[in-house]
């Protein structure tokens, strides 16, 4: 426990967490500090581009691991399964309607790429390498959870909402983040070390700095969301937002250990399973489940689970992964 604690403090005092906290505070204090929407979008393109490419280049460097395909499969299954876990937990812990519970569940089956990025940077600081293809696993885990949520609705809600509209599936699978992440990953695999050398001064050295600014914006957005949706956040929900990532991470831990991943890989799998989507899934829910209340799922995912993972979750996952893999 001491190790986790020291690590958590260390983590809490890193620039990226402090900038996230600055954003939260500024939002609570009603400062007019804002990052223009297009600049935030530009930074997120940069992060996807960089993390994808570096993952690919690392695969190129280490050769394609025999477990790559199995890891992708495991990610796929986890993303399908986790919504059922979340749904059951929500029905027990909270008074959410079927529709709202299914919508929230979809978010927890999917992933948050920024949480993943932050975990990567903590892993690197702790001297852990990880399988480069974990970014591909992240991409694979984005969408399946949405299908599980729609299936849950069809199963438990007789009112007939939540139809899987033609075109929505394609829209989800080809959403910008997935395409850029997977595309950059593949280009990284193809161009390898030589390609990386050319663009490293753009995607490697300034990465941490951009991440700080990006997390400042995330803090602002999360803080404003929390401020406006205070009444939505009943204690049961709030608790769910912190218990669910811990439970999710156990599934990721199991998968990572079964696959025999490196300590860093196990930790990243835990983080992916623990994290909740706040971009792709909300957009899909607005189309497919407009009756679900966006304040609930956005506040939970971005206002509770994201900060929880960033501050406490990641150090916990790291410690557990190190302990159980003997790193």
């Amino acid at each position, binding site marked *: 426990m001491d190790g986790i604690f020291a690590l958590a403090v260390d983590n809490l005092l890193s620039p990226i967490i402090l900038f996230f906290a600055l954003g939260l505070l500024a*939002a609570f204090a009603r400062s007019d500090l*804002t*990052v*223009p*929407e297009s600049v*935030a*979008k530009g930074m997120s393109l940069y992060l996807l581009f960089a993390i994808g490419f570096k993952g690919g280049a690392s695969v190129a460097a280490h050769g394609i691991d025999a477990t790559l395909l199995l890891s992708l499969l495991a990610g796929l299954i986890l993303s399908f399964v986790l919504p059922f876990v979340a749904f059951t937990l929500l029905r027990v812990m909270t008074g959410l309607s079927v529709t709202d519970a299914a919508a929230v569940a979809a978010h927890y089956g999917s992933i948050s790429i920024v949480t993943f990025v932050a975990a990567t940077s903590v892993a690197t600081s702790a001297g852990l390498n990880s399988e480069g293809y974990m970014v591909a696993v992240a991409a694979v885990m984005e969408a399946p959870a949405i299908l599980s949520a729609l299936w849950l609705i069809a199963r438990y809600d007789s009112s007939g*909402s939540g139809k899987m509209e033609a075109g929505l599936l394609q829209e989800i699978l080809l959403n910008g983040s997935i395409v850029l992440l997977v595309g950059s990953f593949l280009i990284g695999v193809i161009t390898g070390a030589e390609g990386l050398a050319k663009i490293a001064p753009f995607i490697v050295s300034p990465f941490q700095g951009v991440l700080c600014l990006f997390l400042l914006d995330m803090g*602002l*957005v*999360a803080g*404003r*969301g929390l401020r*406006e*949706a205070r009444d939505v956040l009943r204690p049961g929900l709030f608790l769910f937002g912190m218990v669910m990532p811990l439970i999710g991470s156990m599934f990721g831990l199991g998968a990572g250990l079964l696959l025999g991943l490196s300590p860093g890989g196990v930790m990243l799998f835990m983080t992916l399973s623990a994290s909740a989507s*706040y*971009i792709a899934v*909300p*957009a899909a829910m*607005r*189309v497919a489940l*407009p*009756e679900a209340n*966006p*304040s609930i799922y*956005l*506040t939970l995912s*971005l*206002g509770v689970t994201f900060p929880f993972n960033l501050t406490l979750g990641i150090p916990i996952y790291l410690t557990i992964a190190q302990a159980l893999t003997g790193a």
Partner: protein
Amino acid sequence: MQTHKAKRVEITIEAVMERRLTTALVTAGVTGFTVLPVLGGSGRSGQWSREGQVSRAGGMVSVVCIVRADKLDNLLDAAFSVVERHIGVVSVVDCEVLRAERF
């Protein structure tokens, strides 16, 4: 200058629904429209703003169509089929247009 009577319809809708709305409009024979960005707003579902919203998943747009009066019902039916389950606002104003042959 010679002007002609027409209707100006304004549909404020979530950005994720934009493509679905314009597809429905085109299917209903409405091929002229203009899409305007929206910075923020307030309604029964609460207040939001483009820069301060929880996640940038949200956001709305405003679609303006100018049509001849006899096409109005078609247009409203098409628009309604899309906005029905969703938040948003549809309003219609009488207007006059130049170059009526375009509508």
